[in-house]
């Protein structure tokens, strides 16, 4: 019972976080702000997926979360490299 409320609350908090990420992502002002916002949004998406996994009692979401973690990292690295050096592979 307490879990229901806890997860519902957590959903609310994570959703609010995602909204804030989105605000920063659209607002900028710098590209760096947007990249950081995207990365944070990825992390919040992981949280969302794990919460959903607990909610529906399934472990199928776990891989998707893991993949977001990895892919999000790689994407962020790519963007960061592009911003710092202008190219991805040297």
């Amino acid at each position: 019972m307490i879990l229901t409320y806890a997860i519902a609350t957590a959903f609310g908090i994570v959703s609010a976080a995602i909204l804030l990420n989105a605000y920063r992502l659209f607002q900028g002002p710098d590209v760096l702000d947007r990249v950081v916002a995207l990365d944070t949004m990825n992390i919040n998406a992981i949280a969302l997926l794990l919460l959903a996994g607990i909610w529906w009692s399934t472990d199928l979401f776990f891989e998707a979360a893991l993949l977001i973690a990895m892919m999000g990292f790689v994407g962020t690295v790519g963007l960061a490299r592009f911003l710092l050096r202008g190219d991805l592979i040297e």
Partner: protein
Amino acid sequence: MTPLLIVLLPFVGLILPIILARHSHTAATVGALIPTTLSFGLLLSLAGDVFAGEVFVASWPWIETLGMNLSFRVDGLGMLFAILILGIGTLVVLYAHFYLSDSDPRGRFFGALLAFMGAMLGVVLAENVLLLAFFWEITSLSSFLLIAYWTHVPLARQGARMALAITGMGGLLLFAGLLLVGHIVGSYELSAILANGALIQGHDLYVPALILVLMGAFTKSAQFPFHFWLPNAMTAPTPVSAYLHSATMVKAGVFLLARMHPALSGTPEWFFIVTGAGLVTLTFAAYVALFKHDLKGLLAYSTISHLGLITVLFGFGTPMAALVGVFHILNHAAFKASLFMSVGIVDHETGTRDMRILGGLRHAMPITATLATLGAAAMAGIPGFNGFISKEMLFYESWKLPFIENEWVVPVIVTVGGLLSMAYSVRLVIDTFFGEEGDTPAKPHDPPFGMWLPVALLVAVCVVVGVYPSIAEPIVNAAALATIGGVMPEGYEHLSLWHGFNAAVVMSLIAIFGGAAFFMLRHKLFALAERYWPNLHGKLVFEGLVERVVDATRATTASLENGSLQRYVMLLIAFVVAAGALPFFLFDFAPGNLPATELEPVTIVIFGIFVAACLGVVANHKRRLTAIVTLSVVGLVVSLSFVKFSAPDLALTQLSVEVVTILLLLLALYVLPKETPSEGGFSLRKVRDGILASVAGLGTGWMSYMVMTRPQDSISMTHLEKAYYPVGGGTNVVNVTLVDIRGFDTMGEVAVLAMAGLGIFALLARLNPEHIHGVTRRVLDRYPVMLTSATRPLLSLILVMAVYIFMRGHYLPGGGFIAGLVATVALIIQYMASGQQWSSERMPVNFRIMAIIGVTIAVLSGATSLALGKPMMTMLVPLGEPGTVMTLYFDLGVFLGVVGAMMTILTSLGVLSRPASAETLAHSKETNPWKP
């Protein structure tokens, strides 16, 4: 088996001279002689039985549903032609050995020659008419390569193109004609077609079929008005001319007349068209030949004229005329090949072929002069040579044969033809070898023994057949029997030199003496011709036509394709909208009646962001990097929604594709401007595009809504119940569908991906971007230590993840495609963090080869079931646990294909940044915010 081998040997053997040509000239010649003589030997082993009247038919199924079989037929006619093709082919190879100069690439020459030889053999030995048409096309293609052999000569290229256009067009018409004939008979096998002549001739489609088939024959055999390609093909090396225009290429047309003779001949239509075309060609070409100063030009028109003569004979439709036609094919091949070779020798040794320059060569080159004179005598039809006998028989057959209701037309025309033939033959000999010695570019002398030996052999044939015609009887009789269709002509006993004093003798005498007189008057005729020669050339007409067609197609293309990518996208989407809108109007717009699912707050938030991100991409599209970042949000939300709506496979794929796409875009962005140039202010075009985009998007959305609100069974349930476990042996319906049920699609897709990878590699390999716009280097450290140390352990982690996803794919979400993308990401991050050099040193893998190996594994594992007698892609072959093994291999192929292709693409794009020197980065800033 033997007929198949005869045809295939030249094709298989064409690799020999190509390989051996690197070694030495002699090796290349030997390499070309091996398949030729082997094939010739096999052919001769059948000759005895064929002369005795036997017909060998051998058949293997090929594309049975289309009625196309790999079936061959060796009868008298095929045997005669095959002997000419291989016999003269052998001599031509030998002759070419001496003719070609050191700078001519011999491998290519002999390779194309053997391909042509094999194609000709296929034409004359085919039993299935579709197979005949198939080989017919190959003769057109390979003769193109031969005629254009000296690719640096523009005239050779033009001549080859013209020959290809004319004979290729004829080949298509012939194909249509043969399809009609096959349709009438109900079979494409010659045995059935030849036996059903009455059925074909009584059918409504007889005339169209006849005209189409004859168009094929006339274009190939250079009959008027399609003759002009042949003289223009004289730009080919002389061995090619000797081969193509005596024994093979142009003879394919008259071969077709002979081949279809039992089925199509004997009707007034046949007689009128074939004889008519033949008569016009015969006289017209003989007349033109007399005025050609170029030796090869003279022979070219003489060839056209003699082909006309053979056409006339087949046109008569009588058994005896067909026999004479067959006989003249043999005779013409012998003397024309020898003459082409003699002329080639003259050209080779003196450096010119112009009869106005040449003269008196009999002193300098006595052997060539003798051989050429004998060959020309055969061409002129002097008694004692083979040409005389067949011409005499032609005269006899033509006597009082009514044409256009007049019995004088044919005899007069053929006599004139014979007269002109005599005249140009005499001219060829006198102007080249007699008279005053000409001032030639090179000092003439006789060629080496090996070069005149082929000529001597051919001339020997002319003389022997001319004196003892009965020696040619077995082959001529057998061929005539096949042409006529079973019964030898009445009154015919033997080929003989003297048939008694009759009209033919008178015609012959007129031809010989008239021809000589005509020759005497030649200078006056030349002067007349100079003045009144019509300035009309088939070549000019043809080139004009081609130019007009090219202009028309260019204009059509230009009106559709103006180079604007926006326009293409607009047209594409407009078409999709139009096609997609049609069902709406045909049926209805109403959504279904399924109740909407419950709307959770989280979903509202997520999809709110989704819509905002889509709008954000549009709003930010000019600032490309910002657009890419915003696009990532779209991808993330799409993945999340896949998870929510129970499509974990799609979610995993979407996530991997997403990051790879972002990396690709970033890599490409390096060489592209970082900002989209301004498109200007308000314009009607923007409004139009905006409306189109909105209609397309909203339409798709509404369509999805309609589908989702209607009650229907989920596809996955159907698959689950019907197919996936019993057939595919797995429990993950997506993966089973990909690797088994729709495995063929997957195979194609992986192949396409690999091709795309190789294509991108090829495109980018030599690209050296001149300007890299707006690159800002904010840090000087190329490989930040934080990044390198964080990413190296990730390699193994992500690879383990890839293996895990790969292995369980058949039962739970995953599979080769997702695993391949994940592994790609694992590898590419090393490139990004530690650099190209560091990574490729530690990972010496050629990803292009990996992609090819992957596709190969996929194809092979799909084809394994073929070996077990099951259809392709039957994955449930009994190897251990049902299906698992084969699908695993297939998925491994997919995995390797994806990794290879994606890594190829990513690294080729990455290479672009390597030449980023100070000059190319002229517009870049190098700033370091952390510099003290």
